């Protein structure tokens, strides 16, 4: 599903990804770990087609993530580590997502409800005015409603309380079939029951790749 071949990304003199090659296939839940600056975020941003690599490429279902980014992104859900300060109201944000990614609005409301987030009471509120936990719940609800084959989470539970974390993991369990789940995390114990593969990165390279 995701094929990373000889990927190198430099920022000035700093090599963030150093000739990284790996594959992620259907029904894999991967924990991507490593110290700060190991290259985890650069790798997921490359998968999302944000970076122009210095060499190598990322293919998703055979499509190049830079050249075919719109088609590629139809199959990806992404939740960043920190919710961005989007000034759109929740209503407008859902409009953006339902028009651009053909996501059913009711489905977002459904998953938000499952995450104990009352969207209808906050429809006209700006996204950035929500609390950290509420923002994260909204982004998680959107990621699940999008029904993508690939779900990428960058420390998704950082702002969630223990109850919300349980809700999140329960929903993920229900929605993980036939998908690639990629978690960037520092807390493996939290997602141990969900993942079946662990990758450690250091200094821009994959130093360990184990199936559990």
């Amino acid at each position, binding site marked *: 599903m995701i094929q990373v071949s000889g990927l190198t990304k430099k920022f000035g003199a700093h090599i963030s990804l150093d000739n990284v090659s790996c594959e992620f296939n259907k029904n894999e839940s991967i924990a991507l770990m490593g110290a700060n600056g190991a290259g985890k975020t650069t790798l997921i*941003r490359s998968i999302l087609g944000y970076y122009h690599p210095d060499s190598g490429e990322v293919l998703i279902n055979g499509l190049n993530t830079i050249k075919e980014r719109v088609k590629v992104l139809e199959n990806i859900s992404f939740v960043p580590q920190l919710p961005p300060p989007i000034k759109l109201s929740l209503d407008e944000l859902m409009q953006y997502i339902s028009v*651009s990614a053909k996501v059913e609005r009711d489905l977002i409301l459904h998953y938000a409800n499952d995450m104990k987030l009352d969207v209808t009471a906050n429809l006209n509120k700006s996204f950035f005015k929500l609390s950290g936990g509420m923002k994260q719940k909204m982004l998680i609800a959107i990621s699940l409603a999008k029904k993508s084959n690939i779900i990428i989470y960058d420390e998704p539970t950082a702002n969630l309380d223990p109850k919300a974390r349980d809700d999140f993991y329960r929903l993920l369990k229900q929605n993980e079939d036939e998908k690639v789940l990629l978690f960037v995390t520092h807390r493996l114990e939290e997602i141990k029951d969900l993942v079946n593969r662990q990758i450690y990165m250091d200094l821009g390279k994959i130093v360990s790749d184990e199936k559990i």
Partner: protein
Amino acid sequence: MKNLYLIAYLDLKESIRAKWFLVYSLVFGGLIALFFIAGVTESQVMGFSGLSRLLLMYIQITIVILPIFILITTVRSISGDRDNHILEYMLSFPISLKQYYWGKIIGRFITVYLPVLFAMIIAVVYGFFKGAIIPWSIFFLYTGLLFSLSSAFLGIAFFISSFVKSSEVALGIAFFIWIFLLAFIDIALISLMLQHRLNEELIIFIAMINPMELFRVAAISLFDPELTVMGPVAFYILDLMSQSLFVLLSIAYPLIVGLFFALLGFKIFQKKDLV
């Protein structure tokens, strides 16, 4: 196309809610109100009176504040979104870069142009009820001139926004461009002319490639087709082309400048890392 309109629509809605838009609208609307209160329409300077005089004053002030307003409010649109990771999230959905970039430009253009236009419409409507003669030709040509001036600075702002890494740098560059073009109008050119006795045609050419200067001369030419208030400079311009051709050029040239920079900005946006 629907994604393009979606981006434009959402950007427009977001901008209208922003505090800067309120200040921006109040400044231009307030200017017109201030002119009426101050009795500008009743005064006469160099033969200009009534609404023509008011519009002339409006345009003279607009030329200074419109570019800086457009630059500082727009220059952070892409760079700001990149800076605070909004771009990272919003572009994780299947929206093409073309739709995102041009949608933002359309939305922002409507936001910056409408208050300026509405202020002029208010002036005309108020003047009409006060029994003033409406200078329609001047009104429509000013509308066109403002449209093209807005396009020029919007294009430049998006160009800057496409390559700068942080909002602070974007603001700095925007301010520099504004002061550079503004200073070019009088200080630099006259100093050059006086100090180095440069070829007058070259100085006038340099002045005319500056969209702010071109806008200013075109605005004057509507009241004073012979450009007598400008002195000998008029000779060079009107010797080269007719007044109507000059006005057409004054509308077309800033539009082309704006489009050129907007396109250049888009190419950079496409080629650069998105976050």
